[in-house]
């Protein structure tokens, strides 16, 4: 079972555990989405320590993309998303993939809207280098 499947199971177990706290103030789907994001962010924090040993955000991506062997070993766009720095990656996924607004992302992640905007821009600027791969 891969990590995504594990996390998906974690999400539904957490939903089961937290079901009593659902007060119906938001649509169930919205509530479930929030629970899922919290579970994912929690898991990423756990994995972050391990990731940092191998990856140093932009620097690592830059090294990979400028590999002298060229495009054969350069990471593609989807892989580049995986190697984005944590903060930028989370904001990027929440904004551009999941469609959350900066105010909502700020609330979820405990940051300011300004930080959310700058992290998003940072992620996009990194990924534009991998558009052709």
């Amino acid at each position, binding site marked *: *079972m891969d990590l995504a499947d594990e996390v*998906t199971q974690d999400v539904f*177990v957490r939903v089961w555990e937290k079901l009593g706290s659902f007060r119906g103030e938001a649509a169930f789907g919205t509530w479930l989405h929030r629970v899922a994001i919290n579970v994912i962010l929690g898991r990423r924090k756990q994995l972050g320590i391990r990731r940092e040993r191998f990856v140093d955000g932009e620097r690592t991506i830059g090294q990979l993309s400028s590999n002298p062997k060229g495009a054969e070993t350069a990471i593609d766009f989807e892989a580049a998303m995986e190697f984005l720095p944590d903060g930028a990656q989370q904001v990027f996924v929440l904004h*551009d993939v999941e469609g959350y607004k900066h105010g909502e992302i700020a609330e979820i992640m405990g940051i300011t809207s300004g930080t959310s905007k*700058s992290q998003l821009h940072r992620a996009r600027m990194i990924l534009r280098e991998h558009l052709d791969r």
Partner: protein
Amino acid sequence: MSDQWTDRLSDYLDGELNAAERAELEEHLSGCAECSAVLEQLRQVVARVQGLEDRAPDGDLWSGVAERIGVAAPVMDLDDHRRRKQERLSERRFSISLPQLVAASVALVVLSAGSAWMVSRTGSLAGEGAMPTAANGTALVSEAPAELATSYDAAVVQLQLILEESRSQLDTATVRIIEENLLIIDRAIAQAQRALTMDPASIYLKEHLAATKRQKLEFLRQAALMAGAVS
């Protein structure tokens, strides 16, 4: 190109700038090919990521979830789980399809007409045995011997009890159809009985009442059989 401008490109793309900031940036973009190129690349990044498709799980994840929350035995095979669920449902419920209902209605009409024909042939209202059946053609009317009328009533009550006990085996629609049909038959019986009190010598009315009572008994028997078929 400078950070002063490029840092605003994502906000511009997302419509986060106010009118004055947007106008200022657009003026810069009109004279800066580099910034325009970056803006286009950022657009492509957004389009690319929004075009990514969700990936479905490789297999059934429910078994792991069920195990962890302790609500059910793990489901190892989703298709097998669905098949077993369907089997359980079909054991709990017994429904009558529309063709079956039509066939039953036709059978009732034939039985009713047959019983009336036999009564008119024999001119006899009495018979042997506790429960009339299609085989012996026994008819029951108001003039029947007391013990026969009692056995008819007892048979009706017994069948109604069986049906009541088996009610949970039938689906709601079937129960409703049975009840509606019984109501129609009971009304017909009551009408025939009222008519007979006004014209006690009428052979036609006697035949009609006999046929209708027989129809009720047969209907109850068929319904009880259907309910009993799953018990």
